């Protein structure tokens, strides 16, 4: 079954058409990278998928369940609040600037959502959170506050926070753009480990070689459309479209 399906998504901000008839489908275990210049619409696409923005037109489907369905004119009609809250449990999102809750300790950042929203038993959630922190190499930071952590550590906590909700699919919105090259390495390694565990992921990134190595499908976006997509090695080493070639020429190492 498809974890996520987006059909014919349209989105405008005023007169500015940001997404033009975008379709995307993600199967279980798939890792998809989305690359493209700034303003190409890739972040907006992610924000539509995570319901931080509402699509103007198209379908948004998680595990066969409609979050939004296009009517006969193609306009996206969203499901009721309760359905949407249920669907939110299927996905997680890691932000570019972490967005941890600064007034909570690392532990509470990770455990409050599953306890409060997921209504799961406290002991179980805490045990899992400790496991996650161990995996992130942050076992000694349980009681630290986000302001006491480096950017890379904060980002690892935010990945742990997303994973604690046991999402079926995890989105990353330029997860390393706020980090220096050394810290970027930390985060990319974590994502690689997740990929090895067959976590379903969609990653918006500017790290070309990372996108090539970690993902099994890559999408190049520009001007609100998908210009080219396919096998990551093929697309990055042998782009077909002129626009893709021009974009990637700056990344050839």
């Amino acid at each position, binding site marked *: 079954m498809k974890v996520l399906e987006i059909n014919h998504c349209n989105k405008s901000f005023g007169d500015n058409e940001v997404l033009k008839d975008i379709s995307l489908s993600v199967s279980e275990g798939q890792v998809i990278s989305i690359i493209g210049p700034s303003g190409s619409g890739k972040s907006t696409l992610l924000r539509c998928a995570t319901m931080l923005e509402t699509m103007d037109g198209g379908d948004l489907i998680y595990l066969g369940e409609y979050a939004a369905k296009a009517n006969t004119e193609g306009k996206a009609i969203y499901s009721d609040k309760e359905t949407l809250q249920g669907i939110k449990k299927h996905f997680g999102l890691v932000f570019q600037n972490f967005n941890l809750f600064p007034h909570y300790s690392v532990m509470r950042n990770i455990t409050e959502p599953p306890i409060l929203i*997921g209504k799961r038993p406290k002991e179980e959630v805490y045990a899992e959170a400790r496991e996650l922190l161990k995996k992130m190499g942050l076992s000694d930071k349980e009681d630290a*506050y986000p302001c006491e952590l480096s950017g890379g550590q904060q980002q690892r906590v935010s990945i742990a926070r997303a994973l604690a909700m046991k999402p079926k699919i995890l989105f990353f919105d330029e997860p390393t753009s706020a980090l220096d090259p050394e810290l970027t390495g930390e985060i990319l390694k974590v994502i690689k480990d997740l990929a090895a565990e067959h976590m379903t992921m969609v990653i918006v990134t500017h790290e070309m070689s990372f996108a090539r190595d970690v993902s099994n499908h890559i999408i190049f976006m520009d001007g609100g459309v998908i210009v080219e997509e396919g096998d990551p090695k093929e697309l990055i080493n042998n782009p077909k479209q002129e626009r893709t070639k021009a974009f990637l020429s700056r990344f050839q190492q």
Partner: protein
Amino acid sequence: MSLSVIIQQLIGGMGSSMLIFMLTLLFSMPLGLLVAFGRMSKCKPLQAIIKVFIAIFRGTPLMLQLLVVYFAPFYLFRISLPRWYRFGAVIIGFAINYAAYFAEIYRSGIESIPVGQYEAASVLGYNKQQTFIKIIFPQMVKRVMPPVTNEVITLVKDTSLAFVLAYAEMFTVAKQIAAAQTNIMPLFVAGVFYFVFNAVVAFVMEGIEKKLSYYR
């Protein structure tokens, strides 16, 4: 009249001043939050009404507001109110006036919280109430502490305005003694009382700020 007698009489007035102070905070702080919600409401008519409310209560003297609250029921509607309404009018006037100020302080605090906090909460499945109570409100409290401290200190001194309704708080008492005894001492003593009261308030507020400084 000896200094100790003056002090004794002023302490009686001080109790009344503190009562005004505490009741005003008790009512105006939550009321201010409601007003702030109205001010930020998506419902335009409500927002407009609250804007006018805030403009009036910030734009006219508190002394005048106290007089209006006290005398309006009689002059406008010919309702005669019981004796306790003198004190009631003081509290109503102060609470509404301070709520208008607190509302704007709260609003500035709420609006200064980065949108990313709302987005993170939304993606994790928090609904609007949960997001406000768990994520936004605690961070707002920390951010508004300095301006709230300012307001609270101003309130200590503003309690003296209750004299316009001849309510016997400390300043009213001090003025009466000063006039009767043709002696400036009572006013000096009152000044020291206000000063000490505010030193305590500042100390407490600083303590709260320190307690909240465990995160940035």
